[in-house]
């Protein structure tokens, strides 16, 4: 399969700060890829390099086989970028702004039908003649997505598209982005909503301090870092006793709750059996499976 995006040993230094530190990463055509990481991890710098807004200090970036610096015009034709900030031109309405944006890419009036289709698919029809200033935050976000699509790019990059968006609109945007991916667009998403990445993306890259710290399919990542915990509610004063009975150093206490980290699921029945044998009453219990959020916190070192 053709590579849609390739980062080849990319570095970016701002004064002394290494914003991106030797990232090598390829994204296949048609992939739905999530780039995760805490604030300042280097996600936006990486995206801005793809957009040609930031020039790498070292290495190269290509989109659909075109180097973003040497063949910038072809590379920019191939990518539509939705910026993180809600920026807009206050002089124009939605339709005018979209037509201008298409025009910058050499699209003439024959493209207006596509612009109208994008407007309709993003539920912007009623607001298409409204000045950008008068739109709500959610509507501005939709207009920004529409702007990235007007020149029909094969690669779409969304830098936190659902930040500050209500639940209903977020769901609508997810469906829309999912449809674009099914139509064959390569999607790259940065997000703080890990649920978003887990639900939508088939591959995830996690960044910390300018480096990729994990890169795998969502399924493998969950499998690789997955852990199961047994959470049981007992009487508080049993801590020392329980430590002796179970003989397991790896557990935590949080008030009445005891959390045992399991190596395998069968360990849970052994723990319950030991507690029963020692006549310790179990008041409540649950089996917890780690999700993307736990993996993210583990890998990015955020607590």
């Amino acid at each position, binding site marked *: 399969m053709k590579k849609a995006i390739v980062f080849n040993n990319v570095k970016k230094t701002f004064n002394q700060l290494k914003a991106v530190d030797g990232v090598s990463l390829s994204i296949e055509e048609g992939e739905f890829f999530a780039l995760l990481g805490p604030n300042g991890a280097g996600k936006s710098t990486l995206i801005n390099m793809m957009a040609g807004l*930031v020039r790498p200090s070292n290495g190269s970036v290509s989109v659909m086989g075109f180097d973003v610096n040497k063949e910038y015009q072809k590379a920019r034709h191939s990518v539509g970028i939705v910026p993180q900030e809600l920026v807009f031109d206050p002089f124009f309405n939605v339709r005018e702004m979209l037509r201008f944006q298409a*025009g*910058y890419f*050499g699209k003439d009036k024959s493209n207006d039908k596509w612009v109208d289709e994008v407007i309709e698919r993003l539920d912007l029809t009623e607001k298409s003649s409204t000045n950008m200033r008068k739109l709500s935050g959610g509507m501005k976000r939709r207009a920004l997505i529409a702007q990235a699509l007007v020149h029909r790019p094969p690669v779409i990059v969304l830098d936190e598209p659902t930040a500050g968006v209500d639940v209903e609109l977020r769901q609508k945007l997810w469906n829309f982005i999912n449809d674009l991916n099914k139509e064959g667009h390569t999607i790259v998403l940065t997000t703080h909503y890990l649920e978003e990445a887990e639900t939508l993306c088939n591959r995830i890259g996690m960044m910390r301090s300018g480096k990729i710290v994990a890169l795998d399919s969502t399924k493998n990542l969950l499998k690789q870092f997955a852990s199961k915990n047994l959470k049981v509610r007992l009487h508080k004063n049993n801590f020392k006793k329980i430590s002796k009975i179970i003989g397991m150093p790896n557990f935590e206490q949080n008030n009445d709750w005891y959390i045992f980290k399991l190596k395998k699921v069968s360990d849970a029945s052994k723990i319950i059996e030991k507690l029963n044998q020692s006549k310790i009453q179990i008041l409540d219990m649950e089996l917890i499976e780690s999700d993307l959020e736990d993996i993210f916190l583990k890998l990015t070192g955020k607590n």
Partner: protein
Amino acid sequence: MNTTRDQLIGTWTLLKKELLRFWRVAFQTVAAPVISGILYLLIFSQVLGDRLEVYEGINYLVFLIPGLIMMSLLQNSFSNSSSSLIQAKIMGNIVFLLLTPLSYLQLFFAFLIAAIVRGIFVGICIYLIAIFYVDLPVKYPWFVFIFAFCGGGLMGAFGMIAGIWAHRFDQMAAFGNFVIMPLSMLSGVFYSIHSLPEIWQTISHFNPFFYMIDGFRYGFFGQSDTSPYLSLLIVSSFFIILSFITIRMLKSGYKLRN
């Protein structure tokens, strides 16, 4: 992908957007400078009209009009490109241009032509109002046009440099208040430099605005303080130098791309 046709459409789209941008706020971008020009005209002609004759056989009011037209043209050409860029930078919507395949030359020409058009449009409005009151001959129309074009282009390019360099509105205001305004006021709009003491005459020759206004006025009357060809050489040289600097800034992404 990105054929010559695509590039022409891209440049035309940006030019159209820039023209529409100032036209949407024509009350501020056209009506206001026209009214200012007419006020200067009324006040100076009332106060000095009958007392002064700068060029032989030419009434002071008639002498004043070309200078005022050119001053407004220059100031508005500067304002168009500078305000468009600084606003786009501060609002953040400059990103919509930077994400496109528009080359630095396409950006340059679209902003430059829009600046020239606005300057010339304001100048024509003042001219049309002025000829209601006085008979204003145009002896060499080509000189009028070439100085209007080069002057508007020079200031459009200067406006782009200011717009790219500045990152706050007060820095932009400083350009207007401390560079454009003094240079245009001291350029011979309201007087002939021959009426100044010798030292000020010499200093005036270092002011590029003087050549733009003097050459433009020559197109109307066939009379000027200095040779119109020298003025044309100096104005076109400045235009080329400032265009070169602007193109270099756009090409390198100075203060636009990190």
